[in-house]
C-alpha cells in the first residue's frame, strides 16, 4: 500500500516525506556511545538507526602483509531492526553491506595499516569494526558507512603492558585515520534518480548504485544493487550525484 503510493509519488516527481530527490533525511551522529569499545558511533538517518563499535585486539599479520595491521568489518542485521531480519548467521545482505563498507575503507587506505605493527611479522593491531543495525527504515548502507568512519575517527589504540597484554581503558594514541571516504547510494526508478530512500521507497526502487568517494573526488568503491539493470548512459549522472553529495555528507563527520 504505502509502497505503491511511494512509487507513484516518485514517478510524479515527489517523495513520500516531501523531500527533494537529492535531499538526505535528517542525520544525527553521536560519537563514543559505547564505553566498552575503543571507538564507536551512533548514526540516526531519519528513523534508520545504526551503531558501529571498534575493538582493537593484538593479532598476527597475514603472511603476505607482515608489516601491516589487520582490518575487518562485520555487520549484524539484528532482528530488532526489522521484521524481515532473522536470528542466525549473517545473511547475504549483511555480508554484502559489511564487505562494501570494508572495501570503501580498505581500498582508500583510510587507515594507515603500516602504523599498526607491534612486532614486524609477528604482532600487529587488528581493527574490528562491528556494525549493529538497530532500526531499518531505509538506506542502511549510507548510515553504516557514516557510522563506521565516525567510529574509526574516534578510535584510540590501547597501551600494552610490559608483557604485551592490552591495558583496556588506557590509551597510547589515536588510530591513524587519514581519509574520509563517503558512501552515497544513488537510487533509480525509471529515469528518476534520488537519494537516501525510506524503507517504502527502497522496496520499490529499480536499482541503486552505491559509490564511495574520497576528499579529492576519487572513487574508491562502487556496487550496483537492486533487481533491475541500469541504462549505460545513466551511469555518469549517477556518479556525478554521488561525488557532489559526498562533499555535503563529509561535513557531518568530525
Amino acid at each position, binding site marked *: 500500500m504505502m509502497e505503491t503510493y511511494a512509487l507513484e509519488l516518485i514517478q510524479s516527481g515527489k517523495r513520500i516525506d516531501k523531500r527533494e530527490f537529492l535531499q538526505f533525511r535528517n542525520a544525527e551522529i553521536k560519537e563514543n556511545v559505547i564505553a*566498552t569499545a575503543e571507538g564507536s558511533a551512533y548514526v540516526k538517518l531519519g528513523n534508520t538507526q545504526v551503531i558501529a563499535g571498534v575493538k582493537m585486539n593484538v593479532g598476527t599479520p597475514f603472511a603476505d602483509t607482515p608489516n601491516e595491521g589487520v582490518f575487518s568489518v562485520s555487520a549484524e542485521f539484528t*532482528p530488532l531492526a526489522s521484521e524481515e531480519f532473522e536470528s542466525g548467521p549473517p545473511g547475504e545482505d549483511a555480508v554484502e553491506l559489511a564487505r562494501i563498507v570494508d572495501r570503501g575503507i580498505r581500498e582508500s587506505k583510510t587507515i594507515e595499516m603500516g602504523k599498526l605493527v607491534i612486532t614486524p611479522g609477528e604482532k600487529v593491531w587488528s581493527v574490528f569494526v*562491528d556494525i549493529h543495525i538497530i532500526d531499518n527504515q531505509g538506506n542502511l548502507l549510507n548510515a553504516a558507512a557514516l557510522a563506521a568512519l565516525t567510529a574509526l575517527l574516534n578510535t584510540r589504540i590501547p597501551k600494552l603492558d610490559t608483557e604485551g597484554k592490552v591495558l583496556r581503558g588506557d590509551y597510547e594514541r589515536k588510530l591513524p585515520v587519514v581519509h574520509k571516504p563517503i558512501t552515497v547510494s544513488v537510487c533509480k526508478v525509471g529515469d528518476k534518480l534520488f537519494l537516501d530512500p525510506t524503507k517504502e521507497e527502497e522496496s520499490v526502487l529499480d536499482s541503486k548504485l552505491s559509490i564511495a568517494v574520497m576528499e579529492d573526488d576519487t572513487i574508491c568503491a562502487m556496487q550496483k544493487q537492486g533487481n533491475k539493470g541500469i541504462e549505460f548512459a545513466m551511469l555518469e549522472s549517477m556518479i556525478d550525484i554521488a561525488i557532489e553529495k559526498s562533499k555535503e555528507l563529509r561535513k557531518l563527520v568530525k
Partner: protein
Amino acid sequence: MGKKTDSELIIDGIRLDKRLPDQTREIKMKVGNIVSANGSAEVAFGNTTALASVHGPRPLFPKHLQESQTGILRVRYNMAPFSVTDRKSPGPDRRSVEISKVTRLALEPSLFLDDYPKVTVDGFVEIIQADGSTRVTGINALSLALASAGIPMTSLVSACSVGKINGTLIVDLNGMEDNNSESDVAVAMMPDKDIVTLLQMDGMLTKEELLHLLGLAKKTCGKIYEMQKNALLEKYRGEE
C-alpha cells in the same frame, strides 16, 4: 569493565562507584525507540544498556511448529561484539542460549498467550554495553517492549540483581562487582502480584542471607516497576 581484582570493593560501607549497598546505578528507560518493531524499549543501568524489540503476534512458520491451542513467545538475548571489553564473536554461545530461555520464562507468566493460537510473539534483546546485570536489564527492556507492542499483559515484569561482596549484601551489581562477588542473584517479579518469575543464584549464601537479598530484590523491583510505568506513560503522553 569487570575484571578480577584483589582490592576491596566496599570501603566504609561505600562501593567503588560511590553507591550505598542497596542503591542502584542511574536507571534510564525509553519506550518506542525502534520504529520498525511492534514494540520497543531501551533500558540502561549505569553503563549496561539493553535494547529490546517485539515483532508480532505473527503467524509461525514452518507450520508444524505451531501450537493449535496457544501462541508462543520466542526470545533471543544477544550481546553486540563491542559490548564487552574483549570482543565477543557474533552468534549464540551457551550463556546466551541459557539467558534467552530464562528471559522467556521470566516474561511468559505475564502474557495471555492462550489468546493467540498458532502465532508467535518474538522478543529480541540486544546488549549494546555490558557492565554487569545484563540479563535483568534485558528483561526490564523486553517487558516494556511487550507492553508498548500492545500485547495484553497481566502485569509488567521488573528485574534486578542482588548479591554479596566483601561480606556485604548489595543491590545492582556492576561488572567489577559481578566478577568479584561471593554470590550474585538475578530476580524478576511481577511486583504488583508478588510473583517471582526469574530466580537464578550463583555462589555461596546462607539461607538467612538469601532471604535478606530476596527482600532487597523485591523492594528494588518495586521501584523499577514504578519507573517502567512512568516510561510507558511518557511514551503515550508523547504520542498525544
